[in-house]
């Protein structure tokens, strides 16, 4: 009965959604998004932070419509299927801090888990180090979970509270329509744009928004989560979410082959560096932070769309974390890690361990 009610929550549903994301992400690259970055939740939130001037790294400033679409698509699905449940109050400050450090870690590697998978599907060998780090970080997270780590219960709240992040995203979209990208201009009104670098590479607004809405809708239905995929495999030996993740890699790989985007190797990969230890280390931090917060960055956007105010705080933490990353020289570039990136990863790990060890209920 439960399976009939939600097709997307069964095995073929999650595989279908993973495949859909894989194909569309690879195609978005073909249509203008940066290399092996058809979709990257961390990178795109970082671009949004740049677009509104929270950092002023000139090459990564763009109001990414995919992110807006993720939240709004999930909101629409949640309303249609009567799953919009405004809730909050499960340690929001902790989620903010986890979001900020998750972003810092992801930007040392240069990608969220989705992009790590897309980089792998595009032939970037450095992604193997990133994914290994991600899995290791999540594994540490499962040890905390087994030992009673728990951020506490949410409370039901006002519907309007659940709407705040979706409304923020809607506001971002309106800003983008009022102050659109003008060719050759680094600023229009209050929004910053990139003239070169990844921030200057994007598919057309309506295509990006449409794909974002579709993925947001389907991911809300299927509960697609890359962190959960590894966590459930480690914690419960359950491969449900993992099959979706595998489908994403396989279908992105096939699409890359078909459109000529598969270039195997380690050196000179798009928006990537070859410092193996810090590709690994950055993602250990990100993976641990995602595990402690209960979702990968994509999943946090979808949860925020269905009314989860704590996930919304995690999202804001990530956007602010991107500001810190670029203002403080923590983020990597194709040349390698930033001047203070290594210190930030170590501090981030210590903060995550502090959270993991002290926030336990027995």
């Amino acid at each position, binding site marked *: 009965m*439960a399976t009939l009610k939600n097709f997307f*929550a069964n095995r073929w549903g999650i595989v279908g959604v993973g495949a859909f994301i894989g194909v569309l992400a690879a195609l978005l690259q073909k249509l203008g998004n940066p290399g092996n970055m058809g979709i990257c939740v961390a990178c795109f939130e970082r671009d949004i932070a740049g677009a509104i001037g929270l950092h002023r790294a000139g090459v990564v400033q763009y109001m990414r419509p995919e992110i807006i679409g993720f939240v709004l698509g999930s909101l629409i699905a949640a309303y249609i299927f009567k799953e919009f449940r405004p809730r909050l109050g499960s340690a929001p400050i902790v989620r903010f801090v986890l979001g900020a450090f998750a972003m810092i870690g992801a930007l040392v590697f240069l990608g969220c888990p989705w992009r790590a998978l897309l980089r792998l599907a595009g032939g970037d060998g450095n992604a193997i180090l990133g994914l290994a780090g991600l899995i290791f970080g999540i594994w540490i997270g499962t040890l905390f979970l087994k030992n009673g780590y728990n951020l506490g*219960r*949410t409370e039901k709240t006002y519907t309007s509270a659940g709407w705040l992040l979706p409304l923020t995203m809607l506001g971002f979209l309106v800003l983008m329509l009022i102050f659109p990208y003008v060719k050759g201009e680094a600023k229009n009104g209050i929004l910053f744009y990139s003239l070169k670098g990844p921030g200057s590479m994007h598919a057309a607004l309506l295509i990006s928004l449409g794909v974002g809405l579709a993925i947001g809708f389907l991911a809300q239905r299927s509960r697609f989560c890359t962190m959960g995929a590894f966590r459930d495999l480690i*914690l*419960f030996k359950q491969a449900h979410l993992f099959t979706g993740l595998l489908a994403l890699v396989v279908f992105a790989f096939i699409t890359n082959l078909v459109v000529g985007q598969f270039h195997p190797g380690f050196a000179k990969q798009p928006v990537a560096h070859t410092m193996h230890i810090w590709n690994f280390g950055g993602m250990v931090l990100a993976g641990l932070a995602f595990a402690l917060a*209960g979702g990968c960055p994509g999943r946090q956007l979808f949860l925020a769309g269905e009314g*989860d105010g704590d996930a919304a705080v995690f999202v804001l933490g990530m956007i602010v974390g991107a500001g810190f990353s670029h203002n403080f020289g923590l983020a990597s570039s194709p040349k390698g890690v930033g001047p203070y990136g290594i210190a930030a990863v170590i501090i981030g790990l210590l903060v995550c361990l502090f959270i993991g060890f002290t926030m336990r209920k027995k």
Partner: protein
Amino acid sequence: MDSVVDARGLSCPQPVLMTMDEIKRVDKGEISILVDTDTSKENVSRAAESRGWIVKDVQPDGIGYRVTISKD
């Protein structure tokens, strides 16, 4: 006497962890799990079935659901 797991307000994987603990503790019989999201309802049902339990009943309960699982 039925055992009840109250996982309302907890996000994944807590509801599944609590259900697994209870399954280990009682071994067989009937367990009711209270959850407040559809995701938790699906996750708990899937986890119980993977351990050889049967999802006997899913009823709306307050703002969420009461999932009843059983094993003879």
